[in-house]
């Protein structure tokens, strides 16, 4: 079948402002949108820039806005689209070139929530014990691939006035450590997260949960962080 893609283009080396360019490619209904983008680049227009790596939703490179909804181009099949597909870079972030955005601020916010296990007790000679139930507590959160689709879709992050909000991706990772039974920095973490630009930045708008390519219940996890902060303060 013939697929028509209308793609956002912007190259600061030559363009004064962004524009849209339409391409047509022959594709199998089972092809990924990523295959179509590659075909454009390889067969029609090598100047088109976008990130990709694993091609099957594990590395998190190819997040973009597809018909207005953030997702991974490698996870979308041609057969789920009719007529024209509109492809734009992830919102919230600065466009560097075409579909490539600057994820620097995304990773800075990610760093700010201390995304690592904090312990005081020296480890034993073998593994620390953790029951399957304790592990399951944060199992869904470890699916996160840092693709930034959730943060890009969040109306709070999209709003210039509240763009300092760390965003759902950073909070998912905060959840992952806060609810890991091996972590010993619960107080430090709840104090850190108890801030208008961190846990309280979330206004439960569910956009993150709707778009997450790994089906993480993002909003619910942020809600559990808020609950944990409450509990810590009312102890």
């Amino acid at each position: 079948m013939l697929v028509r893609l209308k793609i956002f283009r912007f190259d600061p080396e030559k363009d004064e402002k962004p524009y849209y360019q339409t391409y047509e490619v022959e594709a199998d209904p089972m092809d990924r949108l990523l295959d179509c983008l590659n075909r454009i680049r390889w067969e029609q227009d090598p100047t088109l820039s976008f990130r990709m790596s694993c091609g099957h939703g594990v590395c998190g490179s190819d997040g973009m806005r597809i018909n207005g909804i953030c997702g991974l181009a490698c996870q979308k099949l041609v057969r789920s689209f009719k007529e024209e597909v509109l492809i734009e870079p992830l919102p919230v972030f600065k466009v560097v070139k075409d579909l490539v955005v600057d994820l620097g601020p995304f990773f800075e916010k990610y760093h700010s929530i201390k995304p690592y296990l904090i312990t005081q007790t020296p480890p034993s000679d073998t593994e620390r014990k953790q029951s399957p139930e304790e592990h399951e507590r944060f199992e869904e959160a470890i699916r996160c691939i840092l693709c930034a689709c959730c943060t890009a879709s969040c109306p709070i992050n999209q709003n210039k006035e509240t763009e300092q909000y760390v965003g759902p991706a950073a909070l998912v990772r905060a959840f992952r450590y806060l609810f890991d039974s091996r972590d010993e920095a619960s107080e430090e973490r709840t104090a850190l997260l108890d801030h208008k630009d961190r846990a309280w930045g979330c206004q439960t708008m569910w956009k993150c949960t709707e778009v997450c390519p790994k089906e993480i219940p993002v909003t619910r996890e942020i809600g559990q962080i808020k609950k944990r902060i409450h509990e810590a303060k009312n102890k």
Partner: protein
Amino acid sequence: MNIKHDILIVGAGLAGLRAAVECVGQADVAVVTKVFPTRSHSGAAQGGITASLGNEEEDRWEWHLFDTVKGSDYLGDQDAIEIMVRDAPRVIYELEHMGVPFSRTPEGKIAQRNFGGHTRNFGEKPVKRACYAADRTGRVVLDTLYDQCLRHPIKFYPENYLLSLIFDEKRCAGVVTYDLPTGELHFLQAKAVLLATGGCGRIYKTTSNGFASTGDGMSLAFRSGIPLEDMEFVQFHPTGLYPLGILVSEAARGEGGLLRNRLGERFMERYAPTVKDLAARDVVSRAILIETREKRGIGGMDYVHLDLTHLGEEKIEKRLWEIASFVRIYLGIDPVHDPIPVQPTCHYIMGGIPTDVDGRVLTDEKESIAPGLYAAGECACVSVHGANRLGCNSLLDLLVFGRRSGLAMKRDFLQYESPILSNESLRSVDSKIRGLLNHQGREKCDSIRKGMQTVMMEYGSVFRNEEGLKKGVEEIRSLKERYKDIGVSDKKKAFNYELMEAIELGHQLDLSEAILVSALHRRESRGAHWREDFPQRADRYYLKHSLVFPTIKGPEVRYKPVKITKFQPEARVY
């Protein structure tokens, strides 16, 4: 930009990051990486990491050693394998202490599962040796190691593409990279350089490898005059999702999944009567291809079924969530109810840059050391995998030898002065890039790359023979001729992926030739290298590592002995 560091690591997969964590604090460490660190291909590893912890049932490192040696079809160096398997429990506990979210047993220990070729008591029956986090083990270890790096002053150069290794009279003294975001060249000097650049699966049409796996590090070492070891051994993973080639982890069979042909028959019983579906990968891939060649593929096509339908929804959702999601997304079927169509897919290269057990690069069959240059991970060949790697031994390899390379570099770099290099090396790389950009070539990457991928599938994949390999070498050489007239139409600097892919293609063609020439010279069948015209293993002639050297006349193959300590070669039956 011209910058100096003590230690420079190229590649931010598990080997590179583990090395970085090891030497930071005692050296100024920088990591150069083609993709952002968390996008590295190590993250695509699913099934687990092996260690004889014995958490689920009795296990011993001696059994792990035996299985790895047998899995390697006796080509792995047993001294190196022993180092790896004895270090394995420490590696797992270290990861756990760093925070890796391993799945757990009811008693709260790290859970372990079956994997192909891993057995109890020297081949008696399968043993649960693979430590796992559902079917996303590589990804969570990568995330954890990256998160560890954030706690240290490690300098990252993300989206920096390696263009050249720089040597002074005495040693490797740095690299030149293309900084994708700016389009500028970076000249990064160092007292020690580690290549942890991964594999080259993308030279084959059907592969589980990411787009970045183009073998740049291996090829640049080769072009610098360093031989490549055992390049004829390319692993095809038995269960790639049909037709995309996306990995469906062996964990699916470790958890009880079964392979079936058109007749519904469990055909692995015929090929590996003892461990059946849990035989080593080379054995299972050949079995699948024999089935499809003999018209027992599904609907007579070139795939078979991986049947998980008897496992139940809960087990699939808990332990194989990622795989189930791939099947649902890419095929629109549900593995809880439907069998999964699978075919062998190019997955891993056992060969690579020869190193000693501390990651030091070796330049010849006498094992002379290339000062200042180290390699670890898939781009290296220690050799612990020999002619065929066992599942879950690769993450172990990355972590054991990534760390050992880090230890070696932080010891070695102290004896080196800071390199004094002129900008000449930078200028020469710059003029090459300009040459490529300014050349009005008529050839396009896409057509040459497709040609290469087809040639490699046809003549250099699971089944090989003299006639095909010769034809393959000829065709790759003619593609190399065409490559000389390659044209890059995008002339801009930043994010010029066309330029990067043109350079990658040059590496891929060189590696294709090295693989085919090495395969042509090995006139026996061993592990993943199966010669239809020489279907026996010939220890008398070929119990030795190949080394392919770059010469003006093309790749030249020489050999060096295998290190055998505890296990003499025996017939390999599963």
